[in-house]
């Protein structure tokens, strides 16, 4: 199975790469449109700032390439936020794969909660193939200050200050706000479920 990881300026590719290697898979890390299109599965990770990441994707025409991929695509963290229609971070238009908007958590002063949302939190209302075989309300690892609102593509939620989209799914596109590659055995199962998807 050929797994490609999208290489761009906000790609935290290493931890995803190591996780795949634990499954015996050596992914290809590439920004080449042809290589991305030729992969069986594409992972779009990301840690960084939304507007500079979107600028990089547009400058390299990766925005169009990602949107038009036909095989299963998994966005992680910032990757998921960039797949939404708009982000408050840098007030930027995203890829628009999902119609959800991305907002900033209210500050501690207004909410009484720390921002970023950092650590292990539980999933609710999990639906679809990525969550097959998981225990009820599994814990996953989060690090983020922005969140995607709940919408029609939401397939799992987490509650922190407000309930938000923990996972999104539409057609061949899947996305996770948490880091499955750092979420212990449950996170590994979610990644394996993605790797086993057939369209």
């Amino acid at each position, binding site marked *: 199975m050929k797994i490609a990881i999208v290489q761009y300026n906000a790609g935290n590719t290493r931890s995803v790469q*190591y996780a795949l290697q*634990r499954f015996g898979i050596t992914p290809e890390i590439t920004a080449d449109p042809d290589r991305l299109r030729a992969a069986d599965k594409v992972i779009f990770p990301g840690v960084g700032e939304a507007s500079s990441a979107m600028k990089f994707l547009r400058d390299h025409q990766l925005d169009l390439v990602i949107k038009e991929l036909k095989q299963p695509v998994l966005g992680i963290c910032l990757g998921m936020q960039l797949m939404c229609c708009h982000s408050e971070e840098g007030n930027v238009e995203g890829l628009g794969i999902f119609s959800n908007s991305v907002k900033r958590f209210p500050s501690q002063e207004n909410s009484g909660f720390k921002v970023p949302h950092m650590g292990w*939190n539980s999933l609710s209302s999990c639906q679809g193939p990525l969550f097959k075989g998981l225990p009820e309300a599994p814990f996953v690892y989060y690090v983020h200050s922005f969140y995607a609102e709940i919408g029609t593509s939401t397939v799992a939620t987490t509650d922190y200050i407000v309930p938000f989209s923990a996972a999104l799914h539409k057609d061949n596109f899947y996305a996770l706000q948490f880091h499955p590659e750092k979420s212990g055995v449950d996170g590994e199962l979610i990644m394996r479920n993605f790797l086993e998807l057939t369209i």
Partner: protein
Amino acid sequence: MLTKRIVPCLDIKDGRTVKGVNFVALKDAGDPVELAARYAEQGADELVFLDITATHEKRKTLVHLVEQVSAAINIPFTVGGGVSSIDDVQALLSSGADKISVNSAAFKRPELIDELAGNFGSQCVVLAVDVKREQDDWIVYLNGGRLSTGKSAIAWIQEAVDRGAGELLLTSMDHDGTKSGFAVEFTALISELVEVPVIASGGAGNETHFVEVFTSGKADAALAAGIFHFGEVTIPQLKSKLAQHQIPVRL
């Protein structure tokens, strides 16, 4: 609900765990990768590797170790000890570390925090601060608690968070190694002062100490080394005790 984190700390010298480890089930108590895997399996929420290697030359073993840990461990981990430049951080992050902790180098040149947050994002910049109580204030100490800066920890922490530190690792030198409990009052003070998460460190001796630091101390995470290494407190028992006290934990 967001859970409180339990963070075992491994002191590393020349690529090996030091301070002694007393796990009967380990083949090699000095192997940090084996120990880290054991803690991950037991339910540790995160790990910290603190490099205390003296020489620059031998520090290269740290990058190799971080690669091995990344390949073996499926939970987040922080690496610290002597980190002083963007290049140091780049090497550790690209070897798979999730976060980097900075201490003395950031105090001596605070712009380092801006540079690291700007290049890699605040989420991976942990500021470690060693403090001692003096009269009515908490003073920052460097070099593992041997050198007083004379500067108030509160002012330094506020500045560091403004510059982009994304998390704090607070160690009370008065409590470290005493097994008499965490610096609850100081931890609460800082946790209420800043918006970023706070890891309490120094003084853990029993399960009740963790209950105190998560309730009165308002800590987001608590770190300990020796009591875990010697099995005086085990992670599953600790977590079930915390759950009994209605403290949210990942079980």
